[in-house]
């Protein structure tokens, strides 16, 4: 672990080189210097908290990560990356190795007033507006990766939807990595929806060229009163990547958050999603799906904080673990004293395909008022033998029978994706993944360039 701290010390020094080029960001740099101090003074908590976990990622931390000190150019992207979800109805924004790639400008302002683009540019253009949001990251969850992000980020996505604006086309934010050297990528993203604003977006973690990476992403989301956000996170990383993804949401009265966290491949991934239901009648529907095999490890941590009365939350996380993969779900529901008439539900359903795959699920309900409806449930099991037999007794071979059952299992989550092109792409990805045809590839998973005919169509649309 000392090696990692030493490595981070070097990163902090490199980071100063980036800072010096932009003296107008001095207030940010002060903030970051403080976070760097904080990081060095505390023991990396998340790295030591779970013995099994920390030992299994130790080798991933001993890699001498560097930072990408200069932005990449757009030219280099077109040749390697094409995304199938992107179509004329979807606007796509890309970060390459943590830097915003701009085609026309660093910040796009749409006719309806929606602003999307680079966080760094937004900070430059509207410092008084953006800076307060950067300060708010406290040393939360005892999670040093969040502190590390605060200490090192240099760019990220910025999205703003003004009051009463319904953004009619979905936005797609893609974090791409292309490197041959071990790289630490600390992105910071901010999504702000004004009162009664509405947005659908996908946020993808992807790779176009194999490289050993440590991604440390922090996203802050603010939902104004009555706002509605669909937020889909798609993760497809290679087997030796390390991904920490943190999403912190603040929800105003009557706001709705629909999130879907889909992990297809992960070396080692830790997803943290927390939402504060601050205004009455706010609602959060948090879904997750993971498909892991080999020695992949995935952790999903969800924290739902019921602060105001009359709020609702639903968590549904499902996953399939094959071979020697490890998956865990930690769902924490906190119902505060004043959060009367709360409805909070949590469900975690898991399938293990081998007896070497490992799944744990940990519900944690903390309730300080009587007037609540809460429930939680967790299942870990195998595919249903009776169902397998029934399918086979109609002529379907065991392999396809298993596919059908796994497909059915995942469908409950993919069906909730409310962006059509994304749902279709995800359904197809799940199928490919279940067949073992989707590797963490050098191309973007979303490319799906090779539209080769599948030998057997899993889903017919009528």
């Amino acid at each position, binding site marked *: 672990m000392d090696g990692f701290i030493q490595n981070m010390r070097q990163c902090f020094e490199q980071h100063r080189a980036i800072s010096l080029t932009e003296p107008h960001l001095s207030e940010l740099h002060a903030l970051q210097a403080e976070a760097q101090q904080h990081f060095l003074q505390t023991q990396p908590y998340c790295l030591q908290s779970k013995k099994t976990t920390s030992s299994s990622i130790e080798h991933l931390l001993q890699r001498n990560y560097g930072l990408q000190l200069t932005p990449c150019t757009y030219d280099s992207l077109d040749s390697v990356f094409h995304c199938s979800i992107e179509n004329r109805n979807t606007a796509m924004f890309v970060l390459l190795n943590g830097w915003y790639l701009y085609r026309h400008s660093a910040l796009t302002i749409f006719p309806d007033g929606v602003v999307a683009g680079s966080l760094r540019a937004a900070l430059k253009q509207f410092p008084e507006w953006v800076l307060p949001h950067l300060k708010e990251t406290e040393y939360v969850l005892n999670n040093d990766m969040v502190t590390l992000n605060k200490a090192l980020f240099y760019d990220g996505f910025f999205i703003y939807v003004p009051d009463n604006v319904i953004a009619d086309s979905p936005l797609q934010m893609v974090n791409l990595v292309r490197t041959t050297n071990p790289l630490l990528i600390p992105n910071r993203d901010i999504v702000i929806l004004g009162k009664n604003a509405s947005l659908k977006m996908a946020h993808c973690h992807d790779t176009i060229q194999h490289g050993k990476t440590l991604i440390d992403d922090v996203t802050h989301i603010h939902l104004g009163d009555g706002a509605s956000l669909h937020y889909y996170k798609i993760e497809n990383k290679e087997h030796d990547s390390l991904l920490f993804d943190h999403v912190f949401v603040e929800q105003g009265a009557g706001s709705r958050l629909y999130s879907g966290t889909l992990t297809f491949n992960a070396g080692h991934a830790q997803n943290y999603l927390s939402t504060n239901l601050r205004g009455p009648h706010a609602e959060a529907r948090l879904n997750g799906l993971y498909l892991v095999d080999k020695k992949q490890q995935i952790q999903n941590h969800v924290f739902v904080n019921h602060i105001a009365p009359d709020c609702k939350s639903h968590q549904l996380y499902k996953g399939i673990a094959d071979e020697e993969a490890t998956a865990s779900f930690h769902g924490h529901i906190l119902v505060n004293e004043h959060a009367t008439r709360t409805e909070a539900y949590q469900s975690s359903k898991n399938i293990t395909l081998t007896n070497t795959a490992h799944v744990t699920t940990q519900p944690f309900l903390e309730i300080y008022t009587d007037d609540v409806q809460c429930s939680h449930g967790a299942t870990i099991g195998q595919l249903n033998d009776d*169902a397998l*037999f029934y399918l*086979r007794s*109609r*002529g*379907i071979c065991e392999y396809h029978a298993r596919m059908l059952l796994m497909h*059915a299992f995942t*469908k409950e989550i993919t069906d909730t994706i409310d962006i059509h092109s994304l749902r279709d792409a995800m359904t197809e990805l799940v199928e490919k993944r279940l067949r073992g045809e989707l590797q963490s590839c050098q191309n973007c998973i979303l490319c799906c360039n090779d539209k080769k005919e599948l030998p057997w169509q899993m889903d*017919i649309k009528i």
Partner: protein
Amino acid sequence: MLLKIEDLHVSIKGKEILKGFNLNVDRGEVHAIMGPNGTGKSTLASVIAGKDIYDITRGSITYKDKNLFNLSVEERAREGIFIGFQYPVEIPGVSIANFMRAALNEIYRYKGIPELTAAQFLRLMEEKKKVVELTEKLSERSVNEGFSGGEKKRNEIFQMAMLDPELSILDETDSGLDIDALRIVANGVNQLKKASNATIVITHYQRLLDYIIPDKVHVLYDGKIVKSGDKTLAIELEEKGYEWIKKEYEQGKC
């Protein structure tokens, strides 16, 4: 001979259920197997389907001149065996349409017949839905999920119609059906009858046999067929009850 079962002995968890069962079925025939609860009727159907929880201690099953025990569960289905289960399984998330598409594709591939296009498949499905008077959109309904007992049985016959088997074994397809549903199911089975296929109807009551007229009726008791006859045997059984069989069997045994 389509199916020939000889001296079949089957046990489960050390308990012998079938104790020397014999049966010959030819194409074009309808057989009824009757018998009190717990005598091994469903066990027979499951053994033919290939469920692997049983110990087959003696005897043989020959189907289309092949040793049935050499075929996997799915190969038996592809060779034309269909079981209408007494308790069909619910499979949430798998639509009936997808299920049948997958099954037909695999059966056709096995037989070397070109697979149906999506349009041909849909047409076939619409045609076969009529056999059991189904009207729902099957692409949206999960297999047996939330179905009533009657709907499940109708769905079994629908599957039978889709797969066009050579040997169908219908296990208590009449139980739990009201008179209308019974008529629909029986009518469906009759429509599917051909000179080239055979059906074994397993039933507890004679009621179904008013609609599906069997060529032969067998009474299963104590793990073997104790009496065989034509359709009048079913009527006699209905009048005298299973006690009659039991008594006769016990006497014969002594």
